[in-house]
């Protein structure tokens, strides 16, 4: 222990000889370690934020998308002609056990005009049940109900982004008349802002109108009752698998799909989306970690560079030490300890900076700070490893010096 302490003291003394140089070398490691910790925190924090967002959509939700339609052997692409109808949705509500509510959606991008302004956005025709299933919260005004749906009234609920874009003067949108594809609509509600999804889609750039109104007055329809999406909420999370199988059974029956034939629809759950998102964010976290590891590698190369300079500068000192009886391992240890001292100091400072950076980034990004203890311990251990790895070559080089040549070195 004492010998080790002496080696550390000797190393610190050697490093203090050139404070600026040692400081800059340490800085390289600090940046590397801080980057690894901050990026790991960023990746995990973002991943956690995505999971939370998906959970906020409702755990017990299922989506039914139309699949490809095969007509006389000609297969159309998925969704090119919808295979789903409002009757399918009604059948799911009536025949599948464990279903809490069902809604269906038709959506198209359409131009909105209000006063001098206009805005193109996604217009969704939905039934009133949509509000509950999609956890849509009305900030002001009200959502439309069964009365508006049955009568196909021209009423609309706006997303926050649409309000911002159309009502630039800050007027109250409630009660205002906005034209959607030239059809005048009365605004009855404004949705609470939800922000963007993890994929960058603005969830507030949307207008909700009754399904019947959308079909008859805005989007028009050659085939009445066609829907682009059916949303189903299960009574509880555990029953979701059973509901999924029930939907498949009812739809295959209704669509007269024989055993062995492929479905002309697909049922998805948020679990699947969550799984996909998890995979995506995991890849993102890995990439961030990889990129930040490179900066740690660069820091290590900085150490190696400085040690090589140091070995050359102290060639004569090495010669003296060897003449006095220093064995190769003594010389090697001396430079290795210097390297590890450099990298460990850098690692320790880097952890503090990295954790501070993680907190700062999570505040800016608005997701939970994820202080990864694993990444911190790993980064310090890795930086010490970097010290050994990058210190080894210069140390080895020093230990191989010919004492006579070294003693003569000026």
């Amino acid at each position, binding site marked *: 222990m004492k010998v080790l302490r002496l080696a550390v003291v000797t190393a610190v003394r050697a490093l203090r000889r050139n404070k600026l140089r040692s400081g800059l070398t340490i800085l390289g490691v600090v940046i590397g370690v801080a980057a690894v910790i901050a990026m790991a925190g960023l990746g995990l924090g973002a991943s956690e934020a995505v999971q939370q967002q998906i959970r906020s959509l409702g755990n017990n939700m299922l989506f039914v998308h139309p699949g490809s339609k095969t007509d006389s052997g000609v297969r159309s692409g998925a969704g090119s002609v919808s295979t789903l109808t409002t009757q399918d949705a009604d059948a799911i509500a009536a025949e599948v056990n464990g279903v809490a509510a069902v809604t269906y959606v038709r959506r198209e991008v359409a131009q909105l005009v209000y006063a001098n302004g206009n805005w193109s956005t996604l217009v969704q025709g939905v039934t009133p049940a949509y509000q509950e299933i999609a956890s849509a919260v009305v900030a002001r005004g009200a959502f439309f109900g069964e009365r508006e749906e049955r009568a196909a009234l021209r009423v609309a609920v706006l997303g926050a982004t649409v309000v911002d874009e159309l009502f630039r003067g800050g007027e109250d949108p409630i009660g205002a008349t906005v034209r959607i594809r030239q059809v005048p609509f009365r605004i009855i509600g404004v949705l609470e802002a939800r922000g963007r999804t993890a994929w960058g889609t603005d969830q507030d750039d949307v207008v909700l109108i009754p399904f019947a109104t959308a079909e008859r007055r805005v989007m028009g329809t050659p085939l009445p009752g066609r829907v682009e999406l059916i949303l189903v909420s299960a009574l509880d999370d555990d029953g979701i698998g059973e509901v999924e199988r029930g939907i498949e059974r009812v739809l295959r029956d209704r669509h007269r799909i024989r055993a062995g034939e492929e479905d002309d629809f697909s049922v998805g759950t948020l679990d699947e989306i969550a799984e996909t998102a998890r995979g995506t964010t995991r890849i993102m976290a890995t990439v961030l970690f990889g990129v930040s590891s490179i900066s740690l590698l660069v820091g290590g190369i900085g150490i190696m560079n400085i040690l090589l300079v140091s070995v050359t500068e102290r060639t004569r*000192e090495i010669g003296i030490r060897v003449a006095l009886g220093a064995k190769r391992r003594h010389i090697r240890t001396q430079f290795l300890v210097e390297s590890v001292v450099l990298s460990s100091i850098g690692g320790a400072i880097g952890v503090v900076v990295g954790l501070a950076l993680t907190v700062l980034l999570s505040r800016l990004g608005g997701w939970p700070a994820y202080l990864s203890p694993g990444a911190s311990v790993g980064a310090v251990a890795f930086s010490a490893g970097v010290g050994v790895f990058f210190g080894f070559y210069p140390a080895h080089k020093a230990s191989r010096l010919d004492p006579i040549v070294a003693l003569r070195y000026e």
Partner: protein
Amino acid sequence: MKQSAVAAAAPMIAATDLWRVFDLGETRVEALRGVTLEISAGERVAIMGHSGSGKSTLMNVLGCLDRPTRGSYRLEGREVAELAPDDAAEIRNRRIGFVFQSFNLIPRMSAIENVELPLFYGDVPLQDQGVRARAALERVGLQKRAGHMPNQLSGGEQQRVAIARALVARPPLILADEPTGNLDTRTSEEIMKLFAELNDELGVTVVLVTHEPEVAAHARRVLTFRDGRLVGDEKR
């Protein structure tokens, strides 16, 4: 027992037909051409010769810093011509003390830390290192300068620190390469007296290289070299 009996009987240095050839690519330099010599324990020997006579090469070989190309070198009866680097390091650490022309103290280490260095490499317990280093500094009259850095010491004082460092591991042999080459006449005189004292009082074998006759006058035996060969062996 047997080993020590051999060591006691054997001469301190026994070199037989030592050759040291430097292969410089196009030319070969024969720095030592068949040197045979014997130095007994307790002798005080000066090696003289012009520059290029091979005396420094001989010192490097005798100090186990360099290996002869051919020939045998027995130190205290042990063949050391073919030692591996780490074994040679151990011999240098325990059996040989070095004094150099340019002192070769490590800068930014105090006098006493410089003196402790051979003990550190000799795995002497830490608590003993300070005591022995202090005693060695006292022996050369520099106990009051223990905490000074080399650049705070005069040339003569630096060389005394170097001598203390050569002594501290209590080697039976001290090799000095032009130890007074960087010192004025008066200081040289003092250093040479110190070597003579160490030789007389401690019985340390002293071999020193010089080209100054005044320095060689302090020795009891003078070996003269020319063109890599021993050409004179004069006892006084």
